[in-house]
């Protein structure tokens, strides 16, 4: 047990150090969500009927959870890249000849990936508030929202790690991940209210865990007076948790497949 924790922390620490030392990765993954908030949010606020009566904060606040989801995904994609890179470079072999428990390879990767996602989500939240979102909610609401965000990030972490196990080619990994990128945001309630979507898109949005993270966060910390929730809060929590478990299950299978002796 302590051996697993030690190795997990060592791998986590190394990944975070590389992440923070690498300005390009940090800047590159951060800039996209920031641009989303700034450009899309400010541009759309006049188009979308929301907040006509109020000031510009409303639409920014409305879309902020979706952008938090997007940046969590960005962090997860970066984590998948780290795993792919270590595998292709052979650094995985350094782990495999060492006496560390095999589970710590999965755990270390998952922890660092989630950490990257969380760092990004927090930065985005701050940017959103700077631009005009006005969050509410008490301490508990915030904690639950953060937990929800981390669970969602875990789900995507799992997806990214398992996709990154399928290929040895960084380009192919990006191509596969990009397939997920667009629908995650657009086929959800992140940018527009669920009831404004055409029927088939609404079904798609209801099948997308992002919708539940977004709705949950809105209810917890970004609720506007008079706005109505799409789903009950408990359902949001359950679906996001299921997503987290499913993602991690996939990653566990994919990684153990790559670390088993043949």
């Amino acid at each position, binding site marked *: 047990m302590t*051996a697993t924790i*030690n*190795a997990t922390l*060592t*791998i986590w*620490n*190394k990944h975070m*150090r*590389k992440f923070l*030392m*690498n300005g390009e990765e940090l800047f590159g993954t951060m800039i996209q969500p920031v641009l989303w908030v700034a450009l899309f949010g400010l541009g759309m606020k006049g188009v979308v009927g929301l907040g006509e009566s109020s000031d510009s904060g409303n639409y920014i606040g409305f879309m902020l959870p979706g952008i938090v989801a997007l940046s969590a995904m960005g962090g997860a994609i970066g984590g998948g890249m780290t795993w792919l890179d*270590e595998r292709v*470079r*052979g*650094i995985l*072999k*350094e*782990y*495999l*000849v*060492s*006496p*560390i428990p095999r589970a710590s390879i999965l755990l270390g990767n998952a922890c660092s990936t989630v950490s990257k996602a969380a760092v990004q989500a927090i930065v985005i939240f701050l940017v959103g508030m700077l631009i005009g979102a006005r969050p509410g909610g008490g301490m508990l609401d915030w904690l639950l929202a953060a937990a929800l965000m981390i669970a969602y990030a875990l789900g995507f972490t799992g997806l990214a790690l398992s996709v990154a196990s399928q290929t040895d080619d960084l380009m192919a990994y990006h191509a596969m991940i990009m397939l997920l990128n667009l629908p995650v945001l657009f086929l959800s309630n992140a940018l527009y209210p669920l009831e404004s979507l055409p029927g088939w898109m609404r079904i798609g949005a209801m099948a997308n865990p992002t919708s539940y993270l977004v709705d949950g966060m809105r209810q917890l910390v970004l609720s506007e007076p008079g706005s109505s929730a799409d789903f009950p809060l408990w359902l949001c929590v359950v679906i996001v948790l299921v997503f987290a478990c499913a993602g991690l299950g996939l990653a566990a299978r994919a990684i153990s497949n790559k670390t088993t*002796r*043949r």
Partner: protein
Amino acid sequence: MTMADDRRAVSGVPKAVEVSELTKVYTGNVRALDRLTLSVDTGTIYALLGPNGAGKTTTISILTTLISPTDGSARINGMDVVRDEKKVRCDIGVTFQEMILDDALTGRQVLTYHGRLYRMSRGDCTSRAKQLLELIDLGDAADRKCKTYSGGMKRRLELARALMTVPKVLFLDEPTLGLDPSGRAQIWKYIRSLVKDTGLTIFLTTHYLDEAHRLADRVGILDQGRLVAEGAPDQLIDELGVDTIVLRGSGSTDDLREKLQSLQFVETVSVVDDGLLIGVESSSRHLADVVSQASGSAFSIEDVSVSKPDLGAVFAKYTGHRLQNGDAS
């Protein structure tokens, strides 16, 4: 207790490496290792020599617990590489054939993270890394990212990483692959001083004859997954005992070989890819005789050369292939 255990108990200290009837068959029925048996004494250097595809990396991969044997067994200091994998992993250091380094980290970070994986204390990691960086002359570059290192510096850092955890047995898979002569000479220097100073056991693979000859106490020649010869380099060469005349050309060598074998001064005749190797007592005295035998035979000579006995001749004799010598002299 099995009989093998009994024997070890009687003989005392187990061998650093003990491989018995080791066989590895990959999917697709590729037989990479075929009943390989060898052993390495503690505090010595053993070189596994062979052409690409002979099974050298497969052997190292099994010994370092990366892959499982199909059959047979391997022990490191008496510990089975399958059953006692964790203990084995604690006791070994490894460098791989490919350059495996985290380019984004500095040399010092590569070493300390490696130590942390093995649960060395922070203090130990720091002091051991410092000491090793001095040893391999990377002190000045220690805090630069590895991506700025030359090939030779990277290889040296890998060597230091393998030594970081004070292993009892060090496995080096082609430790000088891709290095220029001065880089190779430097690696050799470190390897030799390690064994002299610390009593470490080193198991290395190489396809450079000079590397095996200069470094190893014992050499095993691996060909198509089988050990075809084994011994101290000089002993193997002495057994050859003679100068070698190399005839290269085309056509059938059968009748020429028979003719040569019947001559009194000819000690050995072996067939290689493109000709014959003829062991004679003295090449200077008998070269003309040997060449003259070829006239009238089905083999037409295109090139004649004479070599004093060396590991290359040993290798050619046992494997039927000629191996290029390393670039370094």
